[in-house]
């Protein structure tokens, strides 16, 4: 397992790894992917496998409804004048 790839994956996942952790996860992922190699031998299938049973055409009518009290939804959030606070943008 390429350490650079694991580092890139960690960055994309927004997880910071120490050098020791990077080595450890690198080895773990390597072992796991070795174990997954058997998948290459598995037959292909032309079916659609998003779900194990076919879930099709479940739709909702376009009817607006306010089901939740927004004050309650924001109850435990950090807010300012009803805006939700977040970190710096750039």
């Amino acid at each position, binding site marked *: 397992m390429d350490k650079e*790839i*694991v580092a890139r*994956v*960690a960055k*994309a*996942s*927004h*997880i*910071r790894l120490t050098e020791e952790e990077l080595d450890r*996860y690198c080895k*773990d*992922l390597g*072992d*796991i992917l070795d*174990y*997954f190699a*058997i*998948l*290459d*031998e*598995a*037959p*292909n*299938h*032309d*079916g659609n*496998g*998003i*779900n*194990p*049973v*076919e*879930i*099709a055409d*479940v739709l*909702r009518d376009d009817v607006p409804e306010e089901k*939740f009290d927004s004050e*309650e*939804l924001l*109850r*435990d*959030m*950090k807010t300012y004048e009803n805006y*939700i*606070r*977040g*970190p*710096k*943008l*750039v």
Partner: protein
Amino acid sequence: MSDADTLSKLSRINDKYQMFNDFCRDGELGDAKFLFSVKDNLTSAEYETCAGSRILEGYRPVFDATCIAKLKAEGGKLIGKANMDEFGFGTFSTNSGFGIPRNPFDLSRSCGGSSGGSACAAAVIDDHISLGVSTGGSICCPASFCGTYGIVPSYGRVSRYGLIDYGNSLDKIGILAMDPKQMTKYLPVIAGKDKEDPTSCVQPELKITHKKMKSVAVPREAVEGIAKDVLDAFNKALEDLRSMGIDVEYVDMPELKYAMPAYYILATSEASTNLARYVGMRYGQQEGDLTLGFDDYFTSFRTQYFGDEAKRRILLGTYTRMEGFRDRYYAKALQVRMVVIDAYKKVFADHDAVLTPTMPFVSPKFDDISRMTPVESYKADFLTVPPNLAGTPHLNCPCGYNADGMPIGMQFVTDHWNEDQLLTMAEEWDKQFEIRKAEVSL
């Protein structure tokens, strides 16, 4: 027993087994018809909901999961949120951010996972049912280790509205109980179409007709690499089944060996997207330095509050869906799921169920678990993963105890939507099997 006595007993039981994160400490049980608990990844307005993760500490959902609302409407009282591996990531409930539940038969051993707290609650609280969630074996494994029954219905049978997602195409809510009649009673209550969860809306009605099984198939692949105590109990159970008039036949299911990698790829790919929302905003942990750039801010929360296994699965899942690797892993795993489903359907053409041991060994001691590598612990799920990948309903039946008195379970798998025969099997089995209840000395 008065409400206060019941609750104080509950509190003492929890001190000993640590099966709950949050539970009913005081107040009244009122005229509750029955008491139930749920795995802590089901949202509840009256209790904190953390899914075993410190990143969600302090989260009080504004709504009850559909399954909880349905049990309440039936007169049930929710008394506890059961401990679990963080977001369901584990086989032994040792990956929780909030302590580890203890096996009712031996406190130095695991309850199994990831619904370990639920299995423990079902085993140690009288007349109790507990809802668990299974993604890759998280109901049957702890049911087997704690000596309870456990049913996982078909994918899409029980609404997942209010379930904190692990793998959305795999997650299934089910029931753990010592008495199989309770499962037959309450599965129809929590099942059914729910317009808040599209995947629940295609199911045929769940009808309990008490249809008995006539023949079961045992895949030869499933009895390889099984510990001797488990295999002995399993073979004894096969004899008992034959004496109940059920035909037992060995079959080949070579496709089962592909289920594990396909499962872990789909589960972690989906999980890594589900967990992307936990960034220190909106819910759970939110105390951070907002003057940090958003990438650093998000990273600091995720680095600090996700546990080791959560990080491992996020990394794995992000990798397997990344451009350049997606076709080899994620896309292939979707196809392999269909291959495994086809393999099951072929067996179901001639048999009512596929039968295997549930776990390859009895519940291990915590010391042994700490020495396992990730691959070793993933491999422990090799029998529970295939039906979970296929979304087929399955059942753990306690079928024996080893020399140390540790429970052993067997797992029945039936075709999609056929929970009827599983529930009937559990009740028939229970008539002739002497189930042992763990001794709860406080």
